[in-house]
């Protein structure tokens, strides 16, 4: 990873020079920016939040930008064509917002050296292709602490989508947070093998509640689980969007994806010619990960959550601060150390205290 990072930095420096040579002509020209979404903008989850970011760009720059998007683009053979067409349509900066767009974005970026490409959640970069991601695990650590304080049964239910590092690190961060309050906290994990299937997410929530969990966390996109929690009288954490409307008595907080600051910044850079290929991994501090209001909890729990949030923002607390121990007892980070970024980004193991196996391992 470090090698890649330094390589990226080197390439970025080169791109900066190249970019300086090819400064856009007049400021009056409209800058065209485009987004590619994996789901419909109506999913009220991942794609919806990215589109909120796009709208923020429109709001920030008014008639100086022209934005467009293509939604529900399947990962696979179609993605490359859509990205290529967007580049050909004169877009100056193109955001591709799903991991599976990595290879197609890279291929198109090579063919269009003057267009800036931004790929979310991947790891391959080029001189005109940057990557960005969010430290969702920072928020999940706070969820863990709240859950440990609030749970009476001592067991959290976790509705997971697919076993990719982002989801695994989220589960681990939540458990580390929970263990910091109550070392005996347990978690039950259910994989629904889908990012978006409301009825199945609801079924998973019901199953978990029936098995005795009284806090539901989710890493899927719909508010279905929140509604089930509300109906069954247990607490839950929202995902992607603030889901308080769906669980006025159930939602403790929500991890909100807030891409607006990043999108506004990058479009601005594309406008003034200062855009560089970078690898951005922002979190609570930068506002890219945002915690919805802490609700439905006693004041002391709320205070703890706010303090933890402040500590993470200031850098005083790292969710993956050692000691971090794998299930089999292997020490990943000793006390005083933290798990390296590359290990978080490629995480495929559970921390000690989780009685389950990572699927496929």
């Amino acid at each position, binding site marked *: 990873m470090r090698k890649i990072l330094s390589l990226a930095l080197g390439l970025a420096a080169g791109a900066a020079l190249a970019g300086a040579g090819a400064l856009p002509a007049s400021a009056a020209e409209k800058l065209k920016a485009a987004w590619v979404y994996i*789901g419909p903008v*109506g999913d009220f989850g991942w794609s919806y939040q990215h589109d909120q970011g796009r709208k923020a760009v429109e709001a920030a720059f008014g008639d100086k930008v022209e934005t467009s998007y293509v939604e529900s683009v399947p990962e696979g053979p179609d993605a490359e064509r859509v990205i290529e067409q967007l580049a050909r349509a004169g877009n100056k900066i193109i955001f591709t917002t799903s991991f599976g767009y990595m290879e197609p974005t890279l291929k198109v970026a090579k063919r269009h050296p003057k267009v800036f490409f931004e790929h979310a959640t991947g790891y391959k970069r080029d001189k005109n292709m940057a990557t960005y991601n969010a430290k969702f695990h920072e928020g999940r650590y706070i969820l863990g602490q709240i859950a440990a304080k609030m749970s009476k049964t001592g067991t959290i239910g976790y509705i997971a989508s697919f076993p990719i590092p982002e989801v695994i690190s989220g589960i681990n961060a939540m458990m580390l947070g929970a263990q910091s309050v109550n070392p005996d906290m347990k978690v039950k994990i259910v994989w629904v*093998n889908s990012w978006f299937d409301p009825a199945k997410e609801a079924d998973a929530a019901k199953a978990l509640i029936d098995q005795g969990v009284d806090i539901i966390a989710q890493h899927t996109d719909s508010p279905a689980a929140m509604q089930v929690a509300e109906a069954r009288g247990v607490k839950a954490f929202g995902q992607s969007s603030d889901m308080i409307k769906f669980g006025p008595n159930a939602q403790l907080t929500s991890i909100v994806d807030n891409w607006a600051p990043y999108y506004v910044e990058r479009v601005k850079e594309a406008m003034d010619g200062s855009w560089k290929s970078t690898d951005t991994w922002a979190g609570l501090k930068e506002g890219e990960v945002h915690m919805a209001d802490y609700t439905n909890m006693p004041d002391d729990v709320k205070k703890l959550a706010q303090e933890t949030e402040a500590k993470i923002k200031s850098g005083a607390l790292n969710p993956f601060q050692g000691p971090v121990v794998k299930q089999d007892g292997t020490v990943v980070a000793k006390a005083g150390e933290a798990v390296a970024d590359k290990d978080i980004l490629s995480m495929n193991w559970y921390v000690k205290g989780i009685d389950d196996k990572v699927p496929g391992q």
Partner: protein
Amino acid sequence: MLDTVMIGAVLASVVAAATTLLIASLGELVAERAGTLNLGVEGMMIIGAAVGYATAYSSGSLLLGTLAAVLAGMALSLVFATLTIWLAANQVASGLATTILGLGLAGLIGASFVGTRLDAAPALDIPGLSDLPILGKVAFGQDAFVYASVALLALVTWGLARTRIGLILRAVGESHAAAHALGHPVRKIRTLAVMFGGACAGLAGAHLSLAYTPFWASDMTAGRGWIALALVVFSAWKPLWLLAGAYLFGAVSILQLHVQGFGLGIPSQLLSSLPYLATVAALVLISAMKRGQGAPASLGVPFVPDR
């Protein structure tokens, strides 16, 4: 862990999961018994979900929403019926085209309702009975859609087997030429059967967007229309077997989630594929016991009266 409360709760989830499938597949069964294969179920279901939600949200009435969903499913089925019955277009292609149209229309209708919510259709507890152990909540603590699905099942079973209209409908599905010769209006009957199917698909969509997960999101049916279609084949076109199929599929879908919750480390992909494998296995078993396939003889064949 496996106490009576939990068993009751699990069974209640199974009933809820099976209900969507049962409602949609009952309608499709009637359409197919009259001889029309409607592959547009997914489209009619999603448009029911969208229109039902939009109406219920705007009017504040779940009943109005449900009615609107039924009408919307019916309206889209009329497009399909016009194509396949009155123009004798290919049923398979027409059904798939109708699904694409329905998904698009539903997305447009629902767009302005993304991020809003409704209060779910309430569980209609029957005092006394719903407090019975295990079966109390399962049988007497469900929402109106569940009871509707049972009523629908009774209606379709009885209607097909015991009424004159059911007899004519089956005759049309078995041999439209003979039915025509006897003076039955083949195309009208098929149109009505397809519209009944559309209405049921719309109702199943409303079950999703008004009761199961009471909000609107694009593509929220997530392929359940296809499962409903497969279940009609599973049932060998007999309503009671449809009940068995829908509950088998629903039960395995729910149970695999419970197995995951126990953390046994079985690959989740294997568990997720169990409902499909179980349905295949059950069909093979039933078929091996030489139960007749029972497909209507004229299923899928367009009827052109002057032929």
